[in-house]
């Protein structure tokens, strides 16, 4: 495991290093933004500035990029984790139930709904939900993280955390207001991984249910519930977890769109705005952090997967 961890970690560092080269060369792709010469020396200076947390100053707002970076990242982490959580909480039971009742009406319904959901473009889904639940029914807010009349100081960028940290007299109202702002973007964001995870979970469960040890367990007279919980579920989770990293990457791509559509604070909307405004310091560091964040999540998922399912490690080391 240590060996595997080290290997993955080195690969992670190497990818990060490649990323810094890419962001450094951005300066030469855009003639307006000549911060230095394309020499090894200036690259090393850039690298050392990044490592020392000196990410420059935004050309659009004049604010310190490092400080802004954490706030925007905090907001994106909050939104994407909640969306991932929602998709897991919904997808796992639905996938299992569909597998247990294979070829039933329920199964067909779940599979076709998942397929449909998977085919809906995020921006269209967002508009649809806005029109239906915000404009027509007037249930949810559609822009920002919170009604700006609640004066909640931005500390972490994650609005629910900020509300809890604040000493506002209206903290509980503000919390619900923030939740209200979060519902639609979280649903939109959860949709794509949700539909994928349902299908993965269903297929994985079907696979496992077909295994001999399940038949044996059933023959020993285990109840269906116990059978699923003790034998089927832990084994069916393995392909799902293997997919989580990939699904998270897809989710992050959609987070970019979702943050823009719902005018939410976040690294995605920050990045898009910096592109429009040719704000290169923000563009450079936003890109670097956005990509590193995805890489880091993938690394963590892989490490957990390898730790939890040792057989995977063996597959990776074919020479053993």
């Amino acid at each position, binding site marked *: 495991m240590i060996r595997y961890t080290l290997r993955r970690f080195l690969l992670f560092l190497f990818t990060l290093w490649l990323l810094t080269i890419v962001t450094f060369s951005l300066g030469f792709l855009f003639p307006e933004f000549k911060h230095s010469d394309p020499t090894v020396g200036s690259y090393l200076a850039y690298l050392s500035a990044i490592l020392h947390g000196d990410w420059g100053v935004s050309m*659009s*707002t004049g604010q310190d990029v490092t400080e802004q970076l954490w706030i925007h990242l905090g907001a994106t982490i909050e939104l994407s984790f909640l969306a991932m959580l929602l998709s897991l909480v919904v997808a796992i039971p639905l996938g299992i139930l569909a597998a247990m009742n294979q070829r039933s009406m329920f199964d067909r319904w779940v599979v076709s709904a998942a397929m449909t959901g998977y085919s809906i473009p995020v921006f269209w889904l967002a508009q649809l939900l*806005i029109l239906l639940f*915000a*404009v027509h*029914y*007037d*249930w*949810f*807010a*559609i*822009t*920002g993280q919170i*009604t*700006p*009349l*609640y*004066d909640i100081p931005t500390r972490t960028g994650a609005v629910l955390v900020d509300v809890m940290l604040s000493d506002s007299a*209206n903290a*509980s*109202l503000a*919390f*619900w207001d923030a*939740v*209200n702002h979060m*519902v639609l973007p979280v649903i939109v964001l959860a949709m794509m991984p949700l539909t994928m995870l349902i299908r993965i979970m269903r297929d994985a469960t079907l696979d496992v249910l077909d295994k001999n040890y399940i038949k044996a367990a059933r023959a020993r007279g285990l109840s269906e519930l116990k059978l699923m919980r003790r034998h089927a579920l832990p084994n069916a989770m393995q392909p799902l977890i293997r997919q989580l990293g990939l699904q998270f990457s897809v989710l992050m791509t959609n987070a970019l769109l979702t943050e823009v559509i719902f*005018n939410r*604070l976040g690294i995605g909307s920050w990045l898009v*705005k910096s592109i429009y405004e040719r704000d290169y310091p923000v563009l450079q560091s936003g890109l670097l952090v956005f990509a590193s964040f995805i890489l880091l999540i993938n690394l963590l998922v892989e490490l957990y997967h390898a730790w939890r399912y040792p057989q995977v490690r063996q597959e990776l080391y074919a020479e053993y």
Partner: protein
Amino acid sequence: MRELLAHQRLALGALTIVFGLTGCQPDTPPAPLQNGLIYCSEGNPESFNPQLDASGTTVDATAAQLYDRLIDYDPESKRFVPALATKWQALDNGTRYRFTLRQHVAFHKTAYFTPSRTFNADDVVFSFNRWLKASHPYHDVNGGTYPFFTATGLDKLITDVERINAYTVDIKLARPDSSFLANLATDFPIILSAEYAQQQLDKGHPENIDRFPIGTGPFKFVEYRKDILIRYLRNENYWRQPPEIEQLVYSITPNANKRMLKLLTRECDVIPYPLVNELTAMSQEENIRVLSEVSPNVAFWAFNTQHPPFDDPRVRRALSHAINRAAIVQAIYFGNAQLARSILPPTSWAYTDVNASYQYDPAKARALLKEAGYANGFSMDIWAMPVQRVYNPNAQRMAELMQADLAQVGVEAHIISYEWNTFRRRLAEGEHDSVLIGWYADNADPDNFFRPLLSCAAVRTGSNRANWCNKSFDELLIKAISVNDNDARAEIYRQAQQVLREQQPLLPIAHSVRYQAQQDYIHGVKLPPYGGISFRNASKDLVKKAEDKP
């Protein structure tokens, strides 16, 4: 509405289950929502000081909220009213104005400034000298351009601002000018704090004066996050009645569609510039009110009076009678404009209705043409602006409609257009037969509609699109600005409009309308006929709204 509330409770219940948390929906609206107002503005202000930027967005965001001026203009009574100056009088034949200042007016106390004294003459001298004197230490801070004062010539008109005593200030003028007070009553000559300015200068950060503003206005600055919001709090020590709302937030929403959606979802209390083609749909929403105000502008058709046959007033009058202006207003502005009955909009105190001479009457037009010797008509050019302007959203289309009208009386019209800068340059050189263009006034003074547009001096500078120089008309204009009594001036302007009626160097077409949409529980946020929006008298009545519902 009952259905809607039920849905809301249902949704909230569902949420509680989903998140496994308990919350309760209060019966009365939460205090921050009840006491705050959200205005979804269309853009970021360039500065927090309207002296530096005359754009509507900056003015709406700052002028009436943060600052006060020496005098204000009251559009209801159409008079100047005291603001930071309680009294003023013209001395030395109108070349010196003495202002008596209001006492006990507090400047904003904020996290970044605590005033040690109240408003006095030093603040007036500082605020005026900043843009007046190039040698002033603050003159070049944050750009050093003062567009309003340059455009109106106020920086040339005022020769000196002198402190007589702590509460008396004299402003000396190069010559008498009765539009002077009107210019003072605009959003731009605001009063800054000299004490704060000195403090920032000592700290070596003079640029803060326009970034962390201090004024005497009804609201004080809290925070500004670019592209997101501006937050103001009520100035509890305001010298007038302090505002009813405690908090004022500008939620910056450049996208017009999104502004409308946010109004529908009640994330905005008030929005400016709703989409014109959505106005009907929006006014049918039961909780939304659409306000409109004829803004001080005019679209007109100017004849180049130096090109025959337009040197003959009969030809000009004939052409005016040939145009069906009511149909044009309907087709071009979708009814969102008023038919012009004079060059002055009806909101001006000097307005006179001279519509009779512009009436659509093709028979009369033909008779006049015959009288002038053009019984068989002639051919002419209409120059149409290539760009959209507040006063004319589509000059090209307007020219096409006029082309059809003119054909009815035997006049063949060709439509001409160039790229905007070329268009204006060739216009100034007088190459056109006639042109469709317009004017947007800077202030409430009627002079602003006459001298820049129709004086002999304007022929020389090229802004007189009719190239029309009439000695007796010019004398009337000069007489009007050297008289100070408003009633006497109104009489002179009435005569001037009669001259225009007879001579018709141009045909006024329409005064377009500015729109604003808001929730029905918002009161006291009116669209001002001149200048920026003000939230001083705004109030929000969510409680009453809730009681109204069954």
